């Protein structure tokens, strides 16, 4: 009984936390971008403009829930839900601290890869169902981008799996007790980070949205809370990728003992979230064919090479 209660608390805790972090990140990103861009950002509503997100949420909830008459209604409604659901589901395997994780799955990492592949459907279906040429172009780009980046996203993580000998996230963290995987798996880290950026389609990989080209790409036709879901999904994605980077390469909850493990985990995650935002503030957007050839011609061979070398070292050692 107490174990069931414990899991219920963890599950609700994680969902609530993530659903709070996502809007919090919106505020954080806007303030941080503003700081880097010599302006103020939202600073009027509440202390430090913290209530801005709340105001935006209220606005977005009370907006007319418009579905264009030419859209494929069912799919149109389904698409934004997929992105949020898959991102939230992925958090199930993230170990926040010893014993605090929703599910200690043996195939944790594979579960995440599966969920992120499913997440791609939301963008593709959303663009397709909108029945708009800009959305269509956006979702075509998204399909191409995610398809090609998923391949070596998985491959880049295999080095970590080989070193640990397990897909279980807890085991992976525990294996980093003495040495973080960032050292033996630096190439894997770089590739995973780039692929993660592409998965969340953030600048510089925001070509499915590409504001100056495709207006808003796949979510051009969305408004109200459905648009909000895509938005929240994007921030959930950033948090997810950051927390996975921490778990897989930066020792998860491990850290000097003057802070509790869960704080270490969130602190590290926070640093990567900020890095994502900094990247957005500084880089331009490549063309999508450049992005694809970069992926196939450079990152894929590199991740294979990484795998080969890791294997060789393990065998010889």
């Amino acid at each position, binding site marked *: 009984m107490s174990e069931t209660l414990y899991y219920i608390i963890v599950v609700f805790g994680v969902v609530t936390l993530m659903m709070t972090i996502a809007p919090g990140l919106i505020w954080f990103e806007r303030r941080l971008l503003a700081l880097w861009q010599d302006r103020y950002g939202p600073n009027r509503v509440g202390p430090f403009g913290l209530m801005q997100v709340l105001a935006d949420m209220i606005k977005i909830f009370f907006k007319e829930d418009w579905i264009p008459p030419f859209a494929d209604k069912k799919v149109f409604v389904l698409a934004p839900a997929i992105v949020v659901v898959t991102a939230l589901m992925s958090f199930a395997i993230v170990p926040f601290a010893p014993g605090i994780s929703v599910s200690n799955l043996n195939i944790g990492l594979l579960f995440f890869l599966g969920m992120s592949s499913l997440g791609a459907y939301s963008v593709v279906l959303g663009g397709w169902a909108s029945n708009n040429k800009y959305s269509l172009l956006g979702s075509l780009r998204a399909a191409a981008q995610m398809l090609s980046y998923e391949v070596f996203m998985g491959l880049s993580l295999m080095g970590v799996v080989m070193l640990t000998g397990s897909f279980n996230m807890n085991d992976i963290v525990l294996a980093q007790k003495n040495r973080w995987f960032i050292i033996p798996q630096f190439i894997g880290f770089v590739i995973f980070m780039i692929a993660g950026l592409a998965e969340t389609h953030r600048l510089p990989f925001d070509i499915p949205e590409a504001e100056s080209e495709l*207006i808003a790409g796949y979510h051009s036709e969305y408004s109200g809370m459905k648009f909000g879901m895509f938005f929240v999904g994007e921030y959930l994605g950033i948090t997810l990728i950051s927390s996975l980077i921490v778990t897989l390469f930066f020792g998860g909850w491990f850290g000097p003992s003057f802070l509790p493990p869960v704080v270490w985990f969130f602190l590290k995650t926070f640093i990567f979230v900020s890095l994502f935002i900094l990247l957005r503030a500084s880089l*331009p957007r490549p*063309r999508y064919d450049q992005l694809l050839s970069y992926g196939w011609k450079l990152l894929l061979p590199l991740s294979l090479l990484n795998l080969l070398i890791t294997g060789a070292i393990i065998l010889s050692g």
Partner: protein
Amino acid sequence: MADSGIIDELKTKFGGREFIEQKTHDEFPTLWVSKEKIVDVLRFLKIEISKPYRMLYDLTAIDERTRAGRREMPDSDFTVVYHLLSFDRNDDIRVKVALKGKYPSLPTITKLWSNANWYEREIYDMFGIKIEGHPHLKRILMPLTWEGHPLRKEHPARATEMGQFQLPEEKEKREQQALLFNPEEWGLKKESEDSDFMFLNVGPQHPGTHGVLRLVLQLLGEEIVDIVPDIGFHHRGAEKMAERQTWHTYIPYTDRIDYLGGVMNNLAYLLTVEKLAGIKVPERAQVIRILLCELFRLSSHLVWYGTFAQDIGQLSPVFYMFTDREKVFEIIEAICGDRMHPNWFRIGGVTDDLPNGWDTMVKNFVSYFPKRLREYDKMVMKNRIFKARTIGIGIYNTEEAIEWGITGPGLRATGLEWDFRKKRPYSGYDQFDFEIPTAQNGDCYDRAVVRVEEMRQSTRIIEQCLKNMPSGPYKSHHPLATPPLKERTMHDIETLITHFLGVSWGPVIPEGEAFSGIEATKGNNGYYLISDGNTSSYRTRVRTPSFPHMQMVPFISRGYTIPDLLSILGSVDFVLADIDR
């Protein structure tokens, strides 16, 4: 400019009886040619002659039916004016064709110059002159359902003269019908042999078009097969307005033609008016003008720099550059009292003297700005993704640039060093020490390189203005300078009378025709003014750089993809009001 003997050359070729010469204030050779001979004469000037006139610089028309004092000119109802430019001679020639009748016609020269296409459509749209053999003679600036041709003298200039606006159901249907998109009407095929094309409507409301511009893209996947620009959304009839404003009260309208160029537009207009009136502008006024023009060049280029980076997906530079632009505007505001459209230059000088403390502001800016430019170089120009998006995209060579009437940074990026400030110094630019940046490849990146370097040169010019500001009056004592300098007004009756006339009727500019062009922010901006001795101009032609530049966009975009189109649009740097006027 000396007479380059072109008239004699033409007379030997075609016989003396073919031509009637006309004297103009700008001293360009101006010739009247018959409608039958015009194409041959133009072909001779473009191809056959040595040191040819390779650029069709401007092509426009004049409704001559109510013009007074035409004197030695041949009888004409409508006159079509071809303005050609020769880079080898550094000289222009103006060829005029007299047309008779209410709706006359004229053979096309689209086979001779590619950029004649839009100019001829504009003539048809504005004057109702039919162009025989034109591949796509349709209205270009006015809506397709517009009745009448606005620049004809019988067309009303004010809304109050047009009668009440009504929209009966039948008219509404007609208007709606005209909005429907049918690719064939635009000269686009719906399908090729093996696939259907997709048509993508970019604009008039689109984040990448920088204004109300509509581009119809014919796509094969994301590859651009063809583009048809639809312009005219920003058309406000600036040329028509000039015919009812006085010479003086038209100045604020010019501010808004290239709305990023501010007073630079005033200068192009006023240089022409001053040519007609024979006013010599005092030195101090000239340097003040240059100072402000170069400040505006900076502010315009900064807008371009930031938005170009943003088009390529870089979020931050635009904020830094607009902050710097704000610093430029602070100086402009301190001098003029206004920011974007100060309406500051006057016939014969500028509105007022420089305020106290202007030199400190300029000095601070001149020492601050180059550092920022170096920073932007690192941030934007040396960024590898930025380079990947711009190098080798949207290429044209000098030959093609001239064919399409490209001027300004777009021309210099192909390697041709051509700048009015050096080649035909106006307003005292010959007194300044600066260089004309060029680049070689004529792609998006090189156009950016040229503009960035131009900002450095502009800063140099501003610095020289600061160090060498002459003393003296800021406005000419010529009686036509408007409004006249106050100091003598209460002392002698002559000045009082001219003052009174200048502010009541407006100055009367002597009869004549003149053109003068300046190196504006986007390219060559010029005003071709015709006075028939009245308080307002008889015909004002605004030659803007963005018009031919936009016409070239389809030519340089074919075969590239949608993201490349954004690089191309950004690097061409157009202003919609500058295209549509």
